[in-house]
């Protein structure tokens, strides 16, 4: 079956109408460049209704009006913005090197996160880490390592699984090949095991909350440190499957509403336990998941939201967009309108003075800078899962990815960004480097 025929069939099961579907596929295959895509985006009437004045629709209509205006002015100019790599890199570097103003106190318990977001953004933008920066990263991060084998979010803070994820990822990014050996793997393993609950899920810290983020973070840590065991993940895939809602996405815990962030965590965590094409169908309803994920992308805005009837937000380019590599592997066809997402990111999410943001009118921050860049990387690459890289070992699947740049002669090299590991959310080469050891 040709890819295009397959794609039509997939969309048909997902979206229903053959007419809409064929239009979409024809559209996507004749898109010669971003400007054409922009025209198609503008031809959408938008999803906000003009009919009733509920608050939800009012906000949606306002966002659409703003973005439509921005897109129209771009079409008038005929000039698409490119990625302001230098600006963004200096935005990130400035914060990596300076003390933070008081407004950032709320992030005080999130030191490992700040370092992770900033360094990850820096690397995605092609930055190089010198020895000095490498030392500062690992010294900083290791100072948050606790006796119990977990990392706190900052100095003196108790171990927390989400902070520990950010810490371990930041160490992978630090360009120091031996730094992970400074972690006592046995201790970390026992700590993770102590957070495991009987139903297969994990909690954030002893007495802390449970959700799919905790599961994802625990599994990533174990996977990168090579301490994933059947005991640690017994019942986990089944628990994740129970978090899928009738809508198709995943809630934070069974019974909660489907949500972009929790869905990414659930799908990526499952994909640590096996190749997506096998594990997703085994533990959840793939068709429903595709349907829900595809519905997150707005036709007019091109970007994504995290829940039904919420507004577009740049960070979901990663949280929802990041589900697509797995879905594309499981279905063997293209499901994401990458050109439209790229337009949203480049036109709506870049701040003039550097940094990336949720949507026009919002301030850039570290979090959005990182996840919008992850989304942009997704737009330029395609993930393959290579059985030749697989071994019998539990968790080996996570290291069997090849991520390749999508060949597009129209793509301005100024927009190039590093390929991202679909599960870990860090540049491919940093994963490979740590794997070789």
């Amino acid at each position, binding site marked *: 079956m040709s890819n295009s025929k397959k794609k039509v069939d997939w969309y048909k099961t997902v979206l229903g109408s053959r007419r809409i579907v064929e239009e979409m596929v024809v559209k996507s295959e004749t898109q010669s460049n971003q400007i054409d895509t922009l025209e198609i985006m503008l031809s959408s009437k938008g999803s906000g209704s003009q009919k009733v004045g509920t608050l939800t629709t009012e906000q949606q209509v306002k966002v659409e009006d703003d973005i439509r205006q921005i897109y129209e*002015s771009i079409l008038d100019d005929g000039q698409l913005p490119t990625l302001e790599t230098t600006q963004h890199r200096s935005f990130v570097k400035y914060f990596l090197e300076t003390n933070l103003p008081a407004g950032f106190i709320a992030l005080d318990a999130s030191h490992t996160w700040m370092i992770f977001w900033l360094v990850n953004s820096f690397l995605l933008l092609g930055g190089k880490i010198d020895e000095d920066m490498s030392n500062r990263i690992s010294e900083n991060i290791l100072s948050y390592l606790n006796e119990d084998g977990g990392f706190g979010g900052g*100095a003196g803070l108790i171990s927390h699984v989400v902070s520990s994820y950010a810490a371990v990822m930041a160490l992978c990014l630090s360009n120091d090949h031996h730094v992970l050996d400074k972690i006592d793997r046995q201790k970390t393993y026992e700590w993770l095991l102590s957070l495991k609950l009987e139903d297969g899920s994990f909690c954030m810290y002893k007495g802390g909350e449970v959700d799919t983020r905790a599961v994802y973070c625990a599994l990533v840590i174990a996977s990168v440190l090579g301490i994933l065991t059947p005991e640690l993940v017994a019942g986990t895939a089944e628990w994740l499957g129970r978090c899928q809602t009738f809508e198709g996405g995943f809630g934070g815990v069974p019974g909660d509403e489907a949500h972009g962030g929790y869905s990414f965590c659930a799908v990526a965590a499952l994909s640590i336990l096996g190749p997506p094409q096998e594990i997703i169908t085994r533990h959840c309803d793939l068709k429903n998941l595709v349907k829900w994920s595809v519905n997150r992308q707005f036709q007019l805005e091109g970007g994504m939201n995290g*829940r039904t009837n919420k507004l577009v937000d740049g960070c979901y380019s990663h949280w929802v967009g990041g589900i697509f590599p797995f879905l594309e592997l499981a279905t063997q066809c293209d499901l994401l309108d990458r050109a439209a997402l790229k337009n949203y990111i480049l036109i709506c999410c870049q701040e003039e003075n550097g940094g990336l943001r949720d949507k026009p009118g919002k301030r850039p921050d570290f979090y959005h800078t990182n996840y919008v860049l992850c989304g942009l990387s997704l737009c330029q690459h395609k993930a393959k899962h290579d059985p030749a890289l697989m071994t019998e070992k539990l968790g080996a699947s996570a290291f069997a990815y090849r991520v390749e740049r999508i060949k597009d002669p129209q793509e301005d090299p100024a927009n190039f960004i590093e390929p991202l590991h679909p599960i870990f959310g860090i540049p491919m080469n940093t994963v490979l480097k740590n794997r070789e050891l």
Partner: protein
Amino acid sequence: MHGVKREQLSKDAKQRKKERDAFKISHYRQLTDSVLADKQKNIFNNDTLDETSRLLDLNPEFYTVWNYRRDIITNHVFSNLKDSQAAHTFILKELQFVGKQLKSYPKVYWIWNHRKWLIEQDDLFDLKQEMALIDKMLTMDSRNYHVWAYRRYVVGLVQDKMEHEEDIILSNREEFNYTTKLIEENISNYSAWHNRSQLLQKLLNSKTEGFEDKYSFLVKELSFLQNAYYTDPDDSAVWVYLRWLLSPFFLKDLPQDKRNSILNDQLRDIKELNESEIEDSGKPNAWCLKSISYVQKMMNQHV
């Protein structure tokens, strides 16, 4: 790029802000150091409790301090109380503190986590009062993910204490009616639709009045839904929910004739809605088209 231009601070204002920031930071640092040092030494008394209040006012995201506060309450406050009435009084005061925090920071995990823990510690706590707070918070933001999760949690606690099956059913019914009310206020409230989907499965299982047979329930629910999609045919929440009501989950248990009659009625109504959309705007409605094709697929599937 194309952003809303923000006003630049004048040089003087910048300097003043810098000084204010420096003061805030040094005050915050001192307090943090002192709290973390006391935590390290396991000091549990009224002073350290107050200290954590002050620090949490400055930074409610400080999960370690919430954790420390919990240890102080367990090891100091509770161990010095004479009975559960005294514990109850203390917890009410503590809940006020947490409530104040939630007002300003309704999306901080640790605050919700602390609240959950508190009400679990109090045997005399009136959960009805908690439901009133939840209702109020949902009036402020009807899509707050944390509040919805907390609502399901508190309802779960209420039901755990119930001895009779009928009371549990009644409670689910009240929750179901609450989603009806919210949806009637705003059909775009997908969180309400989601909660409805959870509750109706429980009610169908209990076969209580109005839910005893899937067919009559479906007919009623579809007519409720129809009101919604006629109100706003562009609202995705309604269509997502419709598709679920017409999925094998519901249809598989129906006799052929009833199944057909439901699908036929839906097909007719959605087509009609689509026609009127074409008259209004010159374009068919995408959600109508998708739903028509879905209904047709379901019709063919069984034949």
